[in-house]
């Protein structure tokens, strides 16, 4: 399983804007849907927000990982929103999230789902990866950056 293969340019939203995390999540879900991914937008939004209600998915260092497993998803989907201002995802270190990875997975793919989230979380602890992603101004560069550090 390679994360960079999941991060197609069409799954990336550079300079994502929104005052609340709900808006950010909604935008990334819409982007994935527009990119042609097969899943139910309403189900995704409902389940991701339900998880957020139980506490934000910020993991620190300005990174958040909203996520959910869906009945309607056929494959693991990863979207990325990069925010200039940062949005509060209730991370324990108090830092607003500037890199927001949204992960959606089919119900049956529990193991791969955990692997994908673990991979993102591990890579995002590296400052150099975060810095390169934050400097990204072309969507297609995201996959190349992830590939460089993943391999």
């Amino acid at each position, binding site marked *: 399983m390679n994360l960079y293969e999941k991060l197609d340019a069409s799954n990336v939203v550079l300079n994502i804007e929104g005052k609340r995390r709900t808006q950010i999540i909604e935008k990334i879900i819409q982007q994935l849907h527009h990119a042609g991914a097969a899943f139910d937008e309403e189900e995704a939004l409902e389940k991701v927000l339900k998880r957020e209600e139980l506490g934000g998915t910020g993991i620190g260092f300005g990174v958040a990982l909203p996520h959910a497993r869906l009945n309607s998803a056929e494959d693991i989907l990863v979207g990325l929103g990069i925010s200039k201002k940062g949005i509060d995802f209730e991370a*324990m270190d108090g830092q607003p999230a500037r890199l927001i990875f949204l992960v959606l997975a089919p119900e049956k793919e529990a193991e791969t789902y955990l692997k994908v989230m*673990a991979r993102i*979380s*591990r890579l995002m602890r590296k400052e150099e990866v975060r810095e390169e992603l934050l400097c990204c101004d072309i969507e297609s560069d995201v996959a190349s950056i992830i590939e460089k550090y993943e391999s």
Partner: protein
Amino acid sequence: MNDPLFKIILLMVETTREAMKAAKLAIGLAGFHHARLIGLHIVDRTVIDRLQRFGDKKRSEIEIEVEENGWKYLYHVEEQATEREVGISLLQEEGLPENVIVKKAEAFHADLIVLGMPKARRGVRHFTEVNVERIIELAPCPVLTVT
């Protein structure tokens, strides 16, 4: 109404069977007391040193494995918690477990620390040992060990 007994429960997430039992118990307690759970996995570099010394893998490979497995267990615990509608935050830190857990319990004003204690810890120092006695001695709150 009285204040809840526990508002913040700090759970040490590890890959042992006892740690998973501890997670189940911590989730139950958090649900009962409407407390917030913090799942903490600690990457202990001394363990990585030992794994490297006694194995064939490169240090970088071991580091990746340890870190990713830690996150996998954290997200696994998160799934269990959210199924019970228990709020949880996840954290991975580096350092000596006994120092990190005490420091985080202080920083987050934890009311309880929950951790699993494999049999080997009740006496002889184990390969991936955590000094539970040290945690109990220094913790700013009660410590619940699960065997």
